[in-house]
């Protein structure tokens, strides 16, 4: 079965399984554990104009079937990324997606502009969950106009394929998705983590150094599937789904809810080779449920009597 996925602006994934941003470092870390070239692509950790320090530890905490993290988007900044990480990425034979972050519209524009000149970067993923420091710290992803402004600025400086990653921490993420598509986004990726919190009973304080954190992992899956479903039937662009994927069946669930491809994050910490196993199993799982191709599966649960 052909697992290739054709996406806008000539972006082609050899299969629909992409490593999710922030869970796969900048590429080299897992490269001795996983055949990176076998993946559909990798999304590297969020990149800002200047280095970001990230949050104080502890930065992870387990919850039932889930993981809270408060990494705080620690990263070395776009210049160090280009100098230190692109050389390794040049040796990787799959799609590389740069996840970009900023505290102002100009910061997003700056990172996109710097990466526009890097042929190794095949696509951009605009992470709009960052706080807007000019507008009182509310995230860019929680206001359709601000999300539009970010995507608009990015579109001005790049002709690479761009996806915007929407946050589930708003009432109607599809409104944000529609807004960034209007601003020129080629794709939407969904979802980022849901804000959560845990208490360290022994320490009598929040379990994470950042107090609250982002929930990922299987616990998130039903929330993510619903968001993908709501977004996919409203935007006319491909949706890259993610949230709690552990198996080829989970991938199929996202496809049937409307995704063209998926990203896989937290489960990689438990099983570094799980993504590769999923790729191997995907054709037979598709067949088992009666699908002859990825395209047949995409959106299959939207059709047939489901009112829009």
């Amino acid at each position, binding site marked *: 079965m052909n697992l290739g996925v054709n996406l806008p602006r000539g972006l082609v994934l050899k299969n629909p399984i992409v490593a999710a941003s*922030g*869970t*796969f*470092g900048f590429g080299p*870390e*897992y*490269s*001795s*554990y996983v*055949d990176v*070239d*076998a993946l559909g692509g990798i999304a590297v*950790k969020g990149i800002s104009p200047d*280095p*970001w*320090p*990230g949050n*104080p*530890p*502890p*930065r*992870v*905490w*387990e*919850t039932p*079937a*889930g*993981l809270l*993290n408060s*990494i705080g988007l*620690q*990263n*070395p*900044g776009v210049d*160090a990324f280009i100098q*230190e990480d692109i050389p390794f990425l040049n*040796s990787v034979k799959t799609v590389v997606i740069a996840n970009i972050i900023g505290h102002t519209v100009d910061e997003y524009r700056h990172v996109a502009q710097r990466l526009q000149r890097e042929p190794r970067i095949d696509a951009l993923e605009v992470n709009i969950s960052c706080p807007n420091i000019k507008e009182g710290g509310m995230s860019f992803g929680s206001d359709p106009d601000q999300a539009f402004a970010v995507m608009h600025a990015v579109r001005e400086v790049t002709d690479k394929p761009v996806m915007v990653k929407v946050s589930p921490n708003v009432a109607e993420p599809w409104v944000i998705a529609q807004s960034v598509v209007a601003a020129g986004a080629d794709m939407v990726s969904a979802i980022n983590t849901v804000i959560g919190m845990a208490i360290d009973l022994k320490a009598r304080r929040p379990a994470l150094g950042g107090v609250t954190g982002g929930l990922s*992992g299987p616990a998130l899956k039903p929330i993510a599937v619903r968001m993908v479903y709501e977004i996919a039937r409203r935007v006319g662009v491909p949706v890259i789904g993610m949230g709690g994927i552990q198996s080829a069946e989970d991938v199929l669930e996202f496809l049937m809810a409307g995704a063209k491809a998926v990203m896989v994050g*937290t489960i*990689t*910490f*438990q*099983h*570094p*080779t799980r993504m590769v196993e999923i790729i191997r199993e995907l054709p037979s799982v598709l067949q088992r449920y009666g699908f002859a191709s990825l395209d047949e599966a995409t959106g299959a649960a939207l059709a047939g009597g489901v009112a829009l």
Partner: protein
Amino acid sequence: MNGGKGMHCMKRDYDVVVVQRRVIAPQHVELIVESPDLASAQPGQFAHVLTPGMLRRPISFSRIDRAHGQVGLIVQSVGIGTEWLCNRQAGDRLNVLGPLGRGFSPPEAGQPWALVGGGVGIPPLYAALQAWQNTVHVPQVVVILGARAAAYLIMADDFGRLGVEVRTATDDGSAGQHGTVLSAVTEWMGVHREGQMMACGPTAMLQAVYQVTANWSGRTQLALEQRMGCGIGACLACVVATRSPGTHGSQYQRVCTEGPVFDREELVFS
């Protein structure tokens, strides 16, 4: 698979077999596992072990027997993952990543050597002594062990059998000095103005060692614990504040990759 990329010698997660299980203290179990791969570890490195939780659990090596291709894992049952580990039996398999991280630098010849351990920080010190006692000539070795109570002074007999001086301290005074390892450490530093110390134990103990060694002119290596995600450097979960920048643009370094062993001078420990 990655033909042409010489750097890509593929590691992966793999199964190892538990060949022996013994209860060494209340809630403390030592598992001996057979694995030439793990037995290539440096003292202070760790295995990232699959348990029923969301994440793997980092566990240090209590002994590294390269000749027989075996290592020991001493596990204290403190939560769901370690409880599950403590219930493994001979014949069971564990899925591991590792050996991971940067272990202790070997002791320097000619310098007196103190190994300071608390609780489940004791095992990697035993592995260190075992590895280097006969290969590096040091003029004096002392092992300083602390625990809540006598029953938790794990591996004291093992150290004894290596013929080194062992001093102990317990919070409740049920064995050795009443109190923490600190007074033995201070006393030893008083005698040895130069020298080398390796310490591993609960964060509170390491912070105290960090403090009291501030003006000591010897070298102090501290093996830290931190909550981990990936264990291999990708997620930036396991950081500790350091003086010099690590990778990824901050004053944080990764316990799983740049650590778990750090020179005290590297750390910003409060």
